[in-house]
């Protein structure tokens, strides 16, 4: 179809006035060091801690999660089981909620306490009160796991397993296998996985 001259002219003029900028979202690369290691994170009893205080000798798992997301709810029993199991193997496990409870009230501290209690969670479930820790990780979704090896380098990034809906039908235990690899001093394979999930509801004013 022939492009009308008028439309061409309008478009040509627009190229002089409008600056096209496309930004690819960044992703924390494998091998990266633990970001925001000393940034403050709030515990559920109102104290302040940081990722640096919670690293493990054999590895560190930082998992961005929340209370309201249906995907998190589908996986939360499995997440809690991993979070309770791997500290005994030398892996520091930290669950981080970066969501703004003004958007999802269920994601407030009271909701976090309730979920932690209901799940029997023994690993710390921390509040990223500015969402800046999530920003430093370039985290975008819940649940999203970042597993660092004994040298503090990112060894695995991604999801929990390949079947959120039915634990009995899981054929690839991505995060569990990655944890076992890191504990054994090996490289996880696959090192990067994905699943659909809820976008992190970042708090305004951070960055």
């Amino acid at each position, binding site marked *: 179809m022939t492009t*009308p001259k008028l*439309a061409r002219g309008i478009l*040509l003029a*627009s190229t002089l006035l409008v600056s096209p*900028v496309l930004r690819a*979202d960044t992703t924390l690369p494998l091998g990266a060091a633990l970001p925001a290691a000393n940034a403050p994170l709030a515990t559920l009893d109102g104290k302040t801690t940081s990722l640096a205080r919670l690293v493990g000798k054999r590895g560190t798992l930082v998992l961005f999660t929340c209370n309201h997301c249906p995907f998190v709810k589908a996986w939360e029993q499995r997440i809690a089981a991993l979070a309770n199991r791997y500290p005994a193997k030398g892996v520091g496990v930290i669950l981080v909620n970066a969501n703004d409870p003004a958007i999802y009230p269920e994601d407030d501290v009271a909701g976090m306490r309730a979920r932690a209690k209901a799940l029997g969670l023994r690993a710390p479930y921390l509040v990223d009160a500015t969402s800046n820790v999530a920003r430093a990780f370039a985290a975008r979704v819940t649940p999203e796991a970042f597993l660092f090896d004994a040298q503090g380098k990112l060894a695995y990034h991604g999801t929990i397993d390949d079947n959120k809906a039915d634990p009995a039908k899981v054929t690839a235990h991505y995060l569990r296998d990655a944890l076992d690899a890191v504990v054994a001093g090996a490289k996880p394979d696959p090192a990067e996985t994905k699943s659909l999930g809820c*976008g992190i509801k970042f708090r305004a004013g951070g960055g």
Partner: protein
Amino acid sequence: MLRNVGPLPTAAILVALGFGVAPARAGEDAPAPVAADIQTILHEVKRPGAAAVVLNVWATWCEPCRKEMPGLLRFYRAHAKEGLRLVLVSADDEADRNAANRFLESQGVDFPTWIKRDSDMVFINAIDEEWIGNLPATFVFDGKGVLHDRIYAETDEAALEAALQRLSLKKKAPRKGRQP
């Protein structure tokens, strides 16, 4: 980033992209979302006849997805006759197809839509390898099915207009020798 100029009429943009008026599908019966693999969905994206294609991945459980849908549909309905195609893909489980259909009906959707069938990783990477999988997500393709822009968050009409503007600029740039 757009400078502070008024947006071009979308009709002008679409026509300038080299496409004329495409027949709208409005008025057809509202079909239930069709379970499809990603190749079928991408075939719909690349099907000839569109000046630009917006692919939106949504789910009934996703509140921002439901919230953005009216604006997305207003944008589509305003520009469908100019060659804009909207491909809606539900990320709900197939078992929840009825719930997805009820939502689409509540929004007055009167064109074919899809519900994903592939595993998440296959689905995500086939659409956009940069996408981590967070919903909602909206992707803007040119009429040949080449991905030009993505919105990994709740979108609105202004953001979609801006994405279409960027698409028009990228299409024009090679002719002016400003991009390789």
